[in-house]
Structures are given as structure tokens and as C-alpha cells.
């Protein structure tokens, strides 16, 4: 048995914000009728979290649950638990039309930390990141320069970014370039 290795093995970059590859992280894609009581019941029993509303992400002590589309959620768990969680959910959802798939290895995750973190993302994504438009509890699937990604703020001074594993290096380089010293803009306002 060998140890799994994330796409960039925890690479980091220090600029006016810090960029770090989060490393191994468990992710389970869930598809189903988000409004159905039966579906919600299974998800809530497994995660201890309420199914989030449109473009929202909710956080528990260990797991987080994000709204991805009207019939899709993303469950964030520890990497070790991902396969078992997916299997358990698939089993619990067996009697209804739903899907639970482990996608942990398909993704790369990054953290961007610093009081100016909003503008680092504003350089890459066509999204209004002004505090009144986006903050802790929101999630946005969008475009990071030329690739798809999802962003949210685990707290008021950092972002987490998820993209596909194959473009991990591209996204890391993009974020690093955007966060390079000297490039600070002052828009949107610092947090």
C-alpha cells in the first residue's frame, strides 16, 4: 500500500497573499432531488448539516456541504473517509434516484490567505467579490482565467479554490502570479 499524493504535493507561494495547495481532501459529488425530504434526510443524517440553499456552503466541525447546482451537492470530508462516505451514502440513497460518487482524486484545492485575498480572485474570475456581494457562506462556480473552478471563503480573510486535478499547476501559477508582490490593487476593499 502506497501513500496517495496530491497534484502538487502541498506547494505554496508567498506574495502579498499566500497561496497553498491544500493537499489531499475528500470530496463526494451528490446528485438527487435537493427538495425531496427523503434525500435531505439521508444527507443530513450522514453530515449533521442542513442541505444548503442556492450558492451556499455550510460548514460543520469536520465536513462541509456545498450547493453546486439545483440537483447537485458537494460534500467535503477528510480524504481518508471519502471512499467510505461515498459508499455509505450510495447505500443509504439506494432506494431513491440519486448518486454519490467519490471525486476526491479528480480535484485540486488551494487556499489564498491575506487581507487582500478578494482581489487575487478578482483578477481571475468574472465575479463580484465586493463584501456585500460575496462572503463567508457563499460559494460560486465560475471561471478562473481559462478553466472552471469553485470558490468560497472559509472565513473573512481567506478563499478556498477547487479546480480539476489536471490543471492544478495552471491554477496554482495563476494564483501565484495574481498574488505577486507589487501587484496589489486595493479593489475590492480589504477584509
Amino acid at each position: 500500500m502506497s501513500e496517495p499524493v496530491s497534484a502538487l504535493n502541498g506547494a505554496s507561494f508567498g506574495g502579498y497573499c499566500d497561496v497553498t495547495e491544500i493537499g489531499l481532501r475528500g470530496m463526494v459529488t451528490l446528485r438527487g432531488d435537493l427538495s425531496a425530504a427523503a434525500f435531505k434526510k439521508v444527507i443530513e443524517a450522514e453530515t449533521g448539516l442542513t442541505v444548503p440553499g442556492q450558492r451556499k456552503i455550510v460548514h460543520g466541525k469536520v465536513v462541509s456541504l456545498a450547493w453546486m447546482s439545483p440537483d447537485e451537492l458537494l460534500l467535503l470530508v477528510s480524504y481518508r473517509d471519502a471512499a467510505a462516505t461515498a459508499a455509505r451514502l450510495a447505500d443509504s440513497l439506494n432506494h431513491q434516484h440519486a448518486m454519490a460518487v467519490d471525486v476526491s482524486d479528480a480535484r485540486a484545492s488551494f487556499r489564498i490567505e491575506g487581507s487582500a485575498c478578494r482581489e487575487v480572485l478578482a483578477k481571475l474570475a468574472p465575479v463580484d467579490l465586493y463584501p456585500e456581494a460575496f462572503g463567508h457562506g457563499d460559494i460560486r462556480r465560475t471561471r478562473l482565467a481559462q478553466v472552471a473552478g469553485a470558490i468560497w471563503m472559509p472565513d473573512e480573510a481567506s478563499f478556498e479554490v477547487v479546480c480539476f486535478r489536471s490543471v492544478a499547476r495552471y491554477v496554482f501559477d495563476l494564483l501565484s502570479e495574481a498574488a505577486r508582490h507589487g501587484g496589489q490593487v486595493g479593489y475590492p476593499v480589504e477584509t
Partner: protein
Amino acid sequence: MLLITCPNCGVAAEETELHAGGEAHITRFGPEASENDFEDYLFRRENPRGVHFERWRHANGCGKWFHAARCTATLEVFGTYSAQTTEPPREILETIRAKRPAWTWRDLK
């Protein structure tokens, strides 16, 4: 650059997040179709200067398809609505009637 609100996730998305999918409300004709019906289905499209109904996908976003009613001349968007329907909803037709009394599209007016 267009700004269109995705009815599936509520985002007012700029064009770079979207993928245009051509004309909306096309009825599929399958193996038993006549040559004429099949030709209409595959190749005949409206090309209005004015109100048009289109399909779009929020490709760099929630990934879902939706419909939009849009003016091809002024680019005004009259509304967006679910992809899971065979005709535009009444509210959108009312909006268009109020703004463009003389409009027609296929047999709609």
C-alpha cells in the same frame, strides 16, 4: 459582452461563463419522420431581427441549460426560464407583448 441571468443558480453571468446553444423549442423528429419534417428539425432555423428564443448553458458555472428570450437587434433580455419546457412561460410572453407589441416568432405573437 452580454449579461444573462441563469435561472438555475441565480447568477447574472457574463458571456464568458456561458455557452450559446442555438434556437430554443425545437421538436425532435426521429426515425419515422418524413424528409421534410426531418429537414426542418435539423436545418431550418428562425433568424429574426428582434425577439428570439434561445438556449444557453451556464458552462462555467452551475453547468445547467436554460432558455432566454432576447432581442437580436438591441440585445435586450426579456427573461430567462427553465430548459425543461416546450414553450416560453406566460409571464415572459406578457413582458414581450408589453415591450414589443408588433413582435412575432414562429406562431407566437
